[in-house]
């Protein structure tokens, strides 16, 4: 029932919020998100980290098509649910004092939360697809209605991109569905078995369709070009939803729906996908270096980081997948913090152009300190959350192929180059006419950024509880996989 509550509490709250007056609506939304957070903490408390899928709720839904309303969580799902429930209240807080956003805005954020949690807990192929699509709707409206310049054109591009991916995924799922023994079923396990029984060429087709969908969501080079525009144009909360949580749907998809389903194809084409991901790391880092728009720069840095996560996941080692899990959490927290800092700066200076900034640390030392810690997390300094994941991911890639690992490792250098340059341009130096009047963090902003800073350091020093949550699930996942490929050989 807890899983059901996790999906429906925000959904119901979203409906209620719609009917509330603006001020009340936003506080109610925040309250609902806190309740949701509380539920997820209860789940953690009752979670048995030695077991697989728990908190299962399974009931026939559309029986004629073999669709069940089947949800449940293993460690992998739980970590991402936790990420969602922790960050959503934060996202709502950042909008709490923004009087330009009506009730519907908050309703959409909650709807988004509900759908993303649905994606992470679905144990049925149809349900997964449904939530995947529903999640697209609120973010589409958020970007379209409250975005910045050129939002119509950019949102359309984003929409077409992701819809293309979704359609390919739908085709792949339906294809698998027809390979399940009659009467056909969308249940996760049936689809697994159907997928594994396919020949390599058949698996490859499924792989291509699904991986494209997931790759677009993350996004991975070269299907990433919707991302910088969309992140830059979307309102703060939209950018946060997209980058901190939604992109994890793509990686989650690879872990839960791709690797165990078509293991032969993953093994066969994994290297190609890894190479694209690694190219993306270098490519996006290089482009980040020459960006003048602060927000766009962070967007490209996100592509670089996600490239590493994607590559590490596809090494199919528990070091790599565990690294991906912890890095998803870390990236979520860090990118949330970074975009908030960008927003705070651009709100005060009315610009995001880096060359116009400078000297902010002289007038707002607290902001500079927070930015510094978040940035250190982003460049994976040891004892920050970013290091744990990045180290495990690079470790898995070096084990996979030394040269790939070494190339991916360039992110250690390149990340530092563009981030430290950014810090220098925005925070250091003399203040100028644009930045002289910048005030330091308000209490409201501290309420958001202090926990971010705290989490980055805490996870960096003691990541064990998080790693423990997903360890069993990851091992199960990969043991099933190795068993399958062994018997196929």
């Amino acid at each position: 029932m807890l899983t059901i509550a996790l999906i429906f509490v925000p959904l119901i709250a979203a409906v209620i919020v719609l009917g509330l007056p603006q001020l009340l609506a936003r506080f109610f939304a925040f309250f609902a998100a806190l309740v949701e957070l509380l539920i997820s903490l209860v789940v953690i408390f009752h979670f048995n980290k030695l077991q697989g899928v728990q908190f299962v709720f399974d009931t026939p839904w559309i029986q004629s098509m073999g669709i069940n309303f089947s949800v449940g969580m293993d460690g992998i799902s739980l970590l991402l649910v936790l990420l969602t429930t922790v960050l959503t209240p934060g996202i709502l807080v950042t909008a709490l004092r923004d009087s330009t956003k009506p009730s519907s805005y908050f309703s959409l954020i909650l709807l988004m939360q509900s759908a993303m949690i649905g994606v992470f807990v679905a144990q049925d192929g149809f349900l997964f697809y449904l939530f995947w699509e529903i999640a697209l709707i609120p973010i589409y409206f958020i970007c379209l209605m409250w975005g910045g310049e050129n939002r119509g054109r950019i949102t359309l591009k984003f929409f077409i991109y992701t819809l293309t991916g979704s359609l390919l995924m739908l085709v792949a799922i339906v294809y698998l569905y027809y390979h399940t023994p009659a009467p056909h079923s969308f249940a996760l396990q049936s689809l697994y078995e159907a997928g594994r029984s396919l020949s390599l060429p058949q698996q490859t087709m499924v792989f291509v369709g699904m991986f494209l969908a997931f790759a677009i969501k993350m996004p991975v080079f070269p299907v990433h070009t919707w991302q910088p525009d969309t992140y830059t144009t979307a309102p703060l909360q939209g950018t946060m939803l997209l980058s901190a949580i939604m992109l994890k749907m793509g990686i989650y998809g690879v872990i839960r729906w791709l690797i165990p389903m078509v293991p032969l194809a993953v093994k066969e084409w994994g290297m190609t996908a890894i190479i694209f991901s690694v190219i993306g790391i270098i490519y996006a880092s290089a482009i980040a270096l020459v960006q003048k728009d602060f927000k766009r720069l962070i967007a490209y840095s996100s592509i670089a980081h996600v490239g590493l996560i994607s590559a590490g996941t596809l090494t199919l080692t528990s070091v790599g997948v565990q690294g991906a899990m912890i890095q998803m959490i870390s990236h979520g927290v860090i990118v949330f913090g970074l975009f908030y800092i960008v927003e705070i700066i651009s709100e005060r200076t009315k610009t995001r152009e880096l060359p116009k900034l400078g000297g902010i640390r002289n007038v707002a030392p607290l902001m500079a300190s927070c930015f510094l810690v978040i940035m250190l997390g982003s460049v994976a300094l040891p004892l920050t959350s970013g290091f744990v994941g990045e180290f495990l991911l690079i470790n898995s890639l070096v084990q996979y192929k030394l040269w790939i690992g070494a190339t991916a490792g360039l992110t250690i250098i390149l990340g530092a180059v563009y981030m430290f340059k950014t810090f220098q341009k925005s925070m250091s130096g003399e203040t100028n006419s644009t930045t002289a009047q910048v005030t330091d963090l308000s209490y409201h902003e501290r309420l958001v950024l202090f926990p971010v800073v705290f989490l980055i350091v805490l996870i960096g020093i003691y990541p064990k509880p998080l790693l423990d949550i997903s360890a069993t699930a990851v091992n199960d996942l990969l043991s099933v996989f190795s068993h399958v490929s062994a018997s196929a050989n």
Partner: protein
Amino acid sequence: MSIKAMIFLIPLLPLLGFVLIATIRKRLVRGFAALIGCGSVFTSFIFSLVLFIKLLNGAEPFNVTYFSWIAAGNFSASFSYLIDPLSSLMLLIITGIGFLIHIYSIGYMWKDEGFNRFFSYLNLFVFFMLLLVMGSNYLLMYVGWEGVGLCSYLLIGFWSKNQDYNDAANKAFIMNRIGDLSLIIGVILIFINYGSINYADVFPKVTEGSFVLTVITVLLFIGATGKSAQIPLYTWLPDAMAGPTPVSALIHAATMVTAGVYMVARNNILYTLSPVAMELVLVIGLATALFAATIALAQNDIKKVLAYSTVSQLGLMFVALGVGAYASGIFHMATHAFFKALLFLGAGSVIHALHHEQDIRNMGGLRKYIPITFFTFLVGVLAISGIPPFAGFFSKDEILAKAFEHNQLAWLIAVIASLLTVFYMLRLLFITFYGKNRSSEETIHHIHESPASITIPLIVLAVLSAAGGFMGVPEILGGSNWIEHFLSPVFAKSHEVMTEYTMSHTTEYVLMGVIVVFTLVMIALAYVRYVSRARVPASEGSELSVAHRIIYHKYYIDEFYESIVVKPFYWISKLFDIVIEKSGIDRLVNLISESLQDWSNRFRKLQNGYVGFYIFIMVIGVILVIAYSFLK
């Protein structure tokens, strides 16, 4: 107090000092910040001393595990410390010199508005440096390794309003990161090949050389060239002098930059079994020692001379490691920590006295005005020049003797580098403290000896620089070479493997004599040139000979890197951004979406074409389906 708690507290106290000062720095009066900063490091020093004495009395190395840090799949790393003779010696140097420099900083930074911030960074640095040497596995060493890099960055750019300083800070961090990448890949390869990253598990498993081992040792060494400023990654260190002088003394001379030496010494068995890597260490060490020494000959900034000198001396330590004389390398590291910290702090005292003047062409005759600074600086110069019985003599002589045993050409190059060192150090001494004063009237009027918090650390370090060599007096001079015996358990395995060279005592006496004579000749040459003839380096913009100009401009290495690495990378980035990203991929995608829009426009007559409307209908549809299915 239990040993375990004491070991735990050694790095923790400076960390707590950092947290405390950093969180309440706005409300903290300077005195308290200084007290917290100095007190925490001093307490760590006392604990380090206790551990040192225990080890001295024959206690086994302490290996303490606190908690599991990162574990995934078959990989695991724990938070655990190892206190053996090597790390214990490092602890004494870090906390001891660290404490002296904290005291010094009270006087030096007192009037700076960032006083509290400065102390917080300094404490953070001590924490990471301690972690680096105490970690009992590679990953914890890496934590310290990167952490000191961060503190170095923060302190180089301490006066952050000056963008040149920030450039220097960025350069230091990024160059270090190039080395760090190599280091971490080396560590991962160790894990892959030996199944663990704990020293205690790895070292026994390394029993013979192999290609992989060579790759690992070379990768680790590239890491060391970053942190310890060796060719090709040394150019950040001279620029790092932008930081306040106590920082240059602590981080960029005595402790952080020796991390590479520590790391190679810690992994001695790996290197001993990889002759190729050993040769590389030797060659890079020699090249750097000589190359940096020549640059130091023509620099006019008092701190830049010392910076190149540090690069050169670090090169000498790597020469020691490269010929397998690990204990000698560590010995020189210790004495160098004394005298180079002394020289930097002395330079700081000069700069303080002259109100931020760093150009030696504007100094001269200072011994009359600031006698304590002068005498202590003199001790430092004698120590680095290798005049017996000052500290540098014993440690340098040992390295040269070991180099001679290994390869006489290596010896010759090392000797030339040492003699150049003598020359440029005396040049520095004479131009700064002898002759006529060349400052402006105004400045001369204000010259004053520094306060006690500055002079006391100078005097303590001068005593150490004068007498520190006695911990390693060789047998032929009637000593017992205490340090080599103390460290021998750490290098025991390497000594079993290595073929021991033996050198006749006669040869050793002759070599020692030759070097001392040449050293005196160098002093005489410098004296004639800079005191008798009172030569002052040419002022800015005057005509220089070609050789002089090349050296003065540091062989144009910075410009070379700029044009082969920095600029091309920037252009590639631009190319990616403009050509591939905006006109390539994105154009293609836009083309597709435009044609789609075209199509949808054609269909508009049939439908209203508003995507949002469809989605809205979809949402409602979905909600209805779900609701229906549950109500059913």
